[in-house]
């Protein structure tokens, strides 16, 4: 039984099964590819996005912070916390610098603003964001302020 929306055609080791959905339109046969899925490999530090030919392997290490806020459903990292890599969680800081086995979280300004915010300071050659339902990178540190 295969789910037609997932095209697990190629993983990093070429062993994932590949469902193929063929569509006949006007007598012509076409393949409809599935949606792309994200699969975490055994070591939990790598993962693969399945595509037909390109082996796009997502590397990197995901870190969990050493401080959490209890009582909130979200795991939050406090400023300047040093995160130890467990390979099971994400770093929840807004910016971080990865080294081989350790991620230092910092509270640097966001490099982009959500749709309901705008950069009030930026060193950008690109657009500043805000209000349009579009997420816009500022190409540099910026702080975000709500847009009403």
């Amino acid at each position, binding site marked *: 039984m295969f789910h037609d929306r997932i095209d697990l055609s190629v993983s990093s080791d070429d062993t*994932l099964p590949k469902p193929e959905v063929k569509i006949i339109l*006007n007598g012509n046969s076409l393949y*409809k590819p599935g*949606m792309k899925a994200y699969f975490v490999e055994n070591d939990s530090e790598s993962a693969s996005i399945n595509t037909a030919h390109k082996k796009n392997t997502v590397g990197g290490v995901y870190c969990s912070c050493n401080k959490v806020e209890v009582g909130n459903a979200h795991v939050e990292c406090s400023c300047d916390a040093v995160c130890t890599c467990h390979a099971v969680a*994400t770093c929840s800081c807004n910016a971080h610098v990865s080294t081989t086995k350790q991620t230092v979280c910092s509270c640097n300004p966001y490099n982009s603003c959500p749709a309901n915010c705008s950069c009030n300071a930026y060193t950008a050659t*690109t657009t500043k964001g805000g209000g349009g*339902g579009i997420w816009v990178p500022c190409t540099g540190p910026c702080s975000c302020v709500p847009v009403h």
Partner: protein
Amino acid sequence: MRRYDPIIAGLLILTVLYGCTAEADKQTTAATSATTSVTTTTVMTTTTTTKATTTTKVTTTLPNTIFEPVKPVREGALEECIANAEKYAQNLYAECARSAVDQVKDNSLFEKANDYYKAGKYQKALDTYYEFLKLYPAHIGALNNKGLALLQLEKNESALTNYLILYNLYPKYYQSFINLQIAAHACGYSAADLMEQCDEFINHLVDASAADEPGADVIIAAFAYNLAYEAMETDGSREDLMELIETAKMLYIYSPLYFKETGEYPKEADIPGIAGLLELLSEMFPEDEDVAKLTEYYAALTEVKKKS
């Protein structure tokens, strides 16, 4: 234009902690099959790389219903899954906070589950992921892959709940958003339907892209691809989905990936909608067979629609 607000959570009263009922999944499966037959399938051929097995299923397709809008398979399913996920995640979070963050000492069950999955033994994979999650209930990889197994078994609402739990636990783990997209789509919802709940995913995806975090560009490409997939099934009739398409295009063309490829930031793409996004993806990944197939598929559907 619509704005995506952060989560306003926690007011829903629950009777079930986790997972929608088997009955709900049966309903999902049945209705999803119906949707699939409308939108796509005439011949479905399934092959595996390890075994020469081929199954063929034939249904009929009416050309003028190809762009049948995706509708919720079961009314209220998304709200129910959101509520279940929030409640479950809170309990799990409290449990994990008490026992500190899991440090995985033995990965063998996870590896075994992944092997089952890769062999197409989805039920065994699912059972083994559950077994592993009893030991490490917040293991991000197991939660992620468990959702894929649920999808393969067409337990779509359970998969949706699973990825919403993952989001509640790790709102910045944007990688799993594309799987959440699939689960929602299987239940008849689009990524746009999720945005008010899950906009942090996008926020962190943007940040990761701006920071040139390894793999972020691949996730953006997959996100954009899946959005194109969803949008073409609605023929661009969903305004909020089309806004997301625009967002994806902006994300994509301002990503470090584009810069690496071209050496400069591009002008804003002026080709609208699904076709524009597909064109952009084709430019970025000229050798990606999936993108080529999807583009070809979209062109054929558009042609059929014109004739009908």
